């Protein structure tokens, strides 16, 4: 089954390609578009991108794997990016990442079984004065203490510590 963009997205794509003198230059924005449309960039999405841009799928594959900020097929619905670079690390991002993993019950870079949450350590998010920082989809969580981390997890459907110690409890509550 070959995929197609929705009419609105197609319109946006048509506009996008007019902004660049070469079609291939629209690669990154097009991937963003596909990411938004289909929730992640999977091989089908890459194929679609290749078809839209007019290049080989392998090229798109190379590009997608080069960048870390695209949502891959293996990622959960919400990806929690924990900044792990020096300014954040100085303010305890390692401990924060451990805490989050512990709370959700997965390891770094892993996804919960219900495919809701992925926790990834990323490099600098350019919010060093607000360290430690997390980014969940389009929300920046600044100066994340354990309390704030709980708050963040709650927004992702994981109840506060008092109610459940493990991820399983959170999942139950959500369903």
């Amino acid at each position: 089954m070959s995929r197609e963009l929705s009419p609105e997205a197609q319109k946006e794509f048509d506009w996008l390609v007019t902004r660049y003198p070469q079609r291939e230059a629209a690669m990154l924005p097009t991937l963003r578009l596909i990411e938004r449309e289909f929730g992640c960039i999977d091989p089908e999405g890459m194929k679609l991108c290749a078809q839209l841009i007019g290049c080989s799928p392998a090229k798109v594959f190379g590009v997608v794997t080069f960048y870390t900020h695209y949502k891959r097929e293996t990622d959960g619905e919400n990806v929690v990016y924990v900044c792990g670079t020096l300014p954040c690390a100085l303010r305890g991002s390692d401990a924060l990442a451990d805490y989050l993993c512990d709370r959700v019950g997965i390891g770094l870079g892993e996804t919960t079984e219900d495919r809701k949450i992925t926790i990834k350590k990323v490099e600098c998010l350019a919010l060093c004065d607000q360290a430690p920082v997390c980014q969940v989809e389009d929300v920046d969580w600044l100066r994340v203490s354990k309390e704030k981390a709980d708050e963040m997890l709650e927004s992702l459907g994981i109840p506060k510590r008092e109610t459940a110690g493990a991820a399983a409890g959170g999942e139950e509550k959500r369903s």
Partner: protein
Amino acid sequence: MSAISKPSDTLAFEPVLTRYIGKKDSHTLDFYLSHGGYDAAKRVVRDYKPDEVIDAVKKSGLRGRGGAGFPCGLKWSFVPKKTDKPKYLVCNADESEPGTFKDRVINEEDPHQLLEGILITCWAVGIETAYIYIRGEMWRGAQRLKAAIDEAYAKGYLGKKIFGKKFNLDVTVHRGAGAYICGEETGMLSSLEGGRGYPKLKPPFPAVEGLFRCPTVVNNVETLANLPHIFNRGIEWYRSIGTEESPGPKLFCVSGHVNKPGVYERPLGIPLRELIYDVCGGIPGDRGIRAVIPGGSSAPFLGPDELDTPMSYEGLKDAGSMLGSAGVIVLDDTTDLLSALLNVGKFYHHESCGQCTPCREGCGWVEKILQRMHDGRGRSEDIDLVDEICNQMVGKTICVLSDALAMPAQSVLKKFRPELEKLIAQGRPDVLCELAREPSPAL
């Protein structure tokens, strides 16, 4: 939201680039116009010939704020005047140097200032297409810039026949997707062309053959944001700020172990000590300083005895470090430098694009050795080995990413050698060696 502190009492400096930041709706066109926005651009486009603009910028002494500090006007003058190829401006908003978050403030809070700078640049160089390459992670900045561009189009400040002159300009926001190397100017061009963000071979330099093999000017956000002020208040005024070789105000990003981290606008040349203690309120718990990274994580570390270094391009160069993007990271005396260095090593290993052999293999190798040392399996020879590998990585690659790891690593090995030797001798480092045990926003 980034906290922009009020200018410190110790230094009466009226901010220029950040003066509207923190005000309500500072990102809107209405606000910008009501505060004299686009006046400079209007005047420049109407009254100046392109060459005159370049001359003025040359005279102002504006240096690129992205890291290398290359004179801005000189860079523009390298673009061939007569060419049948289109010319491009790429605004580098891919601020990814650890410890740097100044461009984010401008993008999010005062995007029109940037657009005005872009207008002036494009008029000066004769460019009709500009791209703002912004980090994928900065979703809000991208939104604000897009909105600002829409506003500007609607008002006729972008598009065809701007200010009634034969001057067309299209600006497009291009979002990156999480690759440090795309902050390198040629890596950014590769990425903008739709490929992997591989830096390109130089020469040819972008000014001659850059984006789509056409002449291209690549400027940092802060550089461009300086332009309207130069034309609003004049070259004399501009040169009166900062030092002779590094004129103008500069956004300093201070993070790490300070009481008030944030973006501060100060003239170039401010002593590091003043920045840390007077502007940022000193170190939490009145602890001492172990080291300071003055210009983003790729700059060599400074020791506590070097706090009087002036924060300017030439001052830091003399001190054996660099101003870079002016991302000051302060490490207090509880910090384990090996862990800090390992963190830097991890960053560069993760962000190496993998094109050139020395960087691809070297960054990983250095990280592996540092990790081994950190895990308590280090040997006394390892320090020399890392130093030697760093030597081997410097200056042998297409871009300077391998240098960006090698230089801070070598500075740490040199300046803090006894400490590292002690750590190695101890074997398994003690608990202090973790950078922080708790997520501690307040400290």
